[in-house]
């Protein structure tokens, strides 16, 4: 019998092998000092260490061999779960008892293993060609899985969770602000960008001017844009009555919001214009010939047909905004960036992670949800564009 190999699986197994031979966890005397690297067998009680290795080798084998996507997905999920639980256990195992300064963090090997098996899971899911609702279901299961691990307290010994427990209140207020900044600026950009896009589509003379201006804004570095906004917003707060009361100032959340809003406009406007331009000419012609008013044609024919493209623009903006909102912390706008920049300031990498990991997770989840909704929308009129 000839054994057949899976090409991507071999790569995944190689990455995982590197992960196994690199250090699994780091033990640091306190939260900012460099630490000692520990391999899997050092970081865990020996039975458990070998147990983990066994599971990893089995999952690696599943990756290498040609198997059904479901089998691979289950192998990957098992490996990820065991890996995460082992990390939590390593923290308790490595921390000397009674020492409240010592910190344990995941090391490069852990991240490599995490990456390898996440890739295996992603690949298996893609091969399953899950319908949109199933992708959202996977996401919900993953969210519950992660939530379960965190709630169970198994990770509480880890440095990142110690950083969290010290600032649980702040964490959730900053999370709220982050979401507000990212979603609020998106909502504002859609509210302004959609009509602007429609306008540009109808009056082509304006199109180039508007798109070029928005393009120009897109090229301004965010820090520079904040700087540029301080003056006008401070002036606005000072001159317009009531503006200061609702929180408009030269620094803080207002300029961050405005900057994110400005960055969001281009994808929204550009995709609206492209989407509307892609509406089949005959459909437009028929709509007019049949006696629709311009407004009826817009809402009944043009916007529904352009919706998948517009949603793609919104997806770009949402993911971009979730990432970009971290920068808001630089000018006192809040959000997860607060932890990132504090962490950098204190050279406490785990604090940086406390800001970065939720940001990445949020962006990822947003992308999955929006992709699924775009696809659901597109399924209804599957093949619409080729008609």
């Amino acid at each position, binding site marked *: 019998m000839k054994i057949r190999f899976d090409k991507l699986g071999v790569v995944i197994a190689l990455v995982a092998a590197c992960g196994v031979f690199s250090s699994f966890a780091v033990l640091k005397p306190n939260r900012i000092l460099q630490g000692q690297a520990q391999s899997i067998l050092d970081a865990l009680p020996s039975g458990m260490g070998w147990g983990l290795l066994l599971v990893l080798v089995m999952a690696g084998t599943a990756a290498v061999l040609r198997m059904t996507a479901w089998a691979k997905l289950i192998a990957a999920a098992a490996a990820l779960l065991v890996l995460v639980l082992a990390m939590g256990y390593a923290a308790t195992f490595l921390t000397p008892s009674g020492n409240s300064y010592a910190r344990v963090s995941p090391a490069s090997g852990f991240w490599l293993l995490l990456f390898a098996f996440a890739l295996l899971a992603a690949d298996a899911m893609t091969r399953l060609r899950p319908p949109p609702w199933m992708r959202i279901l996977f996401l919900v299961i993953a969210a519950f899985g992660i939530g379960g691990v965190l709630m169970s307290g198994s990770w509480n010994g880890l440095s990142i969770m110690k950083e969290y427990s010290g600032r649980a209140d702040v964490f959730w207020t900053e999370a709220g602000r982050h979401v507000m900044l990212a979603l609020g600026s998106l909502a504002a950009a859609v509210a302004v960008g959609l009509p602007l896009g429609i306008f540009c589509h109808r009056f082509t003379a304006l199109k180039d001017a508007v798109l070029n201006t928005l393009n120009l804004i897109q090229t301004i570095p965010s820090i520079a844009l904040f700087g540029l906004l301080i003056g006008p917003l401070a002036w606005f707060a000072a001159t317009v009555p009531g503006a200061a009361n609702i929180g408009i100032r030269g620094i803080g959340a207002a300029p961050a919001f405005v900057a994110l809003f400005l960055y969001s406009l281009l994808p929204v406007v550009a995709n609206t214009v492209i989407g509307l331009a892609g509406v089949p000419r005959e459909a437009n012609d028929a709509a007019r*010939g049949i006696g*629709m008013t311009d407004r009826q044609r817009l809402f009944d024919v043009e916007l529904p047909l352009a919706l998948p493209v517009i949603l793609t623009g919104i997806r770009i903006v949402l993911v971009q905004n979730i990432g970009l909102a971290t920068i808001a912390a630089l000018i006192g706008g809040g959000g997860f960036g607060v932890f990132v920049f504090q962490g950098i300031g204190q050279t406490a990498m785990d604090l940086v992670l406390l800001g970065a990991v939720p940001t990445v997770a949020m962006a990822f989840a947003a992308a999955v949800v929006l992709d699924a909704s775009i696809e659901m929308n597109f399924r209804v009129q599957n093949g619409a*564009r080729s*008609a």
Partner: protein
Amino acid sequence: MIEIDAITKTYDEIAVVDDVSMVIEPRTITVVVGTSGSGKTTLLRMINRLVEPTSGEIRLDGDDNRSMPAHELRRRIGYAIQGHGLFPHRTVAQNIATVPRLLGWEKPRMDAKVAELLTLFQLEPEIFGPRYPHQLSGGQQQRVGVARALAAEPNVLLMDEPFGALDPIIRAKAQDDLLAIQKHFGTTIVLVTHDMNEAFHLANKIAVMDKGKVVQYGPPVELVRAPTTDFVKTLIGDAERPFRLLSVANAAAAVEPGEAEGEPIQEDRSQQDALAALLWSGRDALPVVSVGGKPIGRIKLSTLLKRAARLQ
């Protein structure tokens, strides 16, 4: 009645419709023929103001077609666009119900109309109603396009090559259905086609367009007997002329008293069909029956041959 009065449309100084005047009688079918690019579509689209004329005027029942908002005008005029133009994101049933919905019909009336039209065009309402246009064949899409134009029972119907994508059998059926619909509702139809057989089969009057001008406008017989230009002659085809003459006259018009042997022909068939039956069966005369099947006389081969000749 549609009065087209000295209508001209120029694009970049070029007149694509050049000083066209014609009167289209109510409850008739007018067929516009001509080569590609001769301005047929443009002329048609000026009637419902999808194209605004550069000069001239079009009157519908005496009123300038610019005397009401364009969208209201268009809801009263059915329009089957060249190449169906169905809405890809709407089902067949929703597509057909578009104008009734705009006019605010009640749901049961709309549903009944959709089912009636789909049945008329041989599309099973339960099967085709919920489908999306991309799930239909080209010919089915075209029929749905025509059904959509007919949905609000318009007095005037503009059709731009409505049967272009249909196979000969369905096409013949669709043409007969159109004639039946036209009789039933008394619709005034202006139809554009490339197919001269279709033109002769359907038209009360034919307008021949060449380079933006209507070079001849009259009943089909007139076009065959007295073509005004070489272009019209070529379009009709020298070899086809006698048969075209016979194709536009009913068998009833050539009946004389007397009897004949063999398979009879119905009085409402064309004289061309009668000639074909005579030639094929090698007879000299053919019994003619009424639509009800009563014998009413006979048609002689010699009569038809005389009728197919230029002068009578």
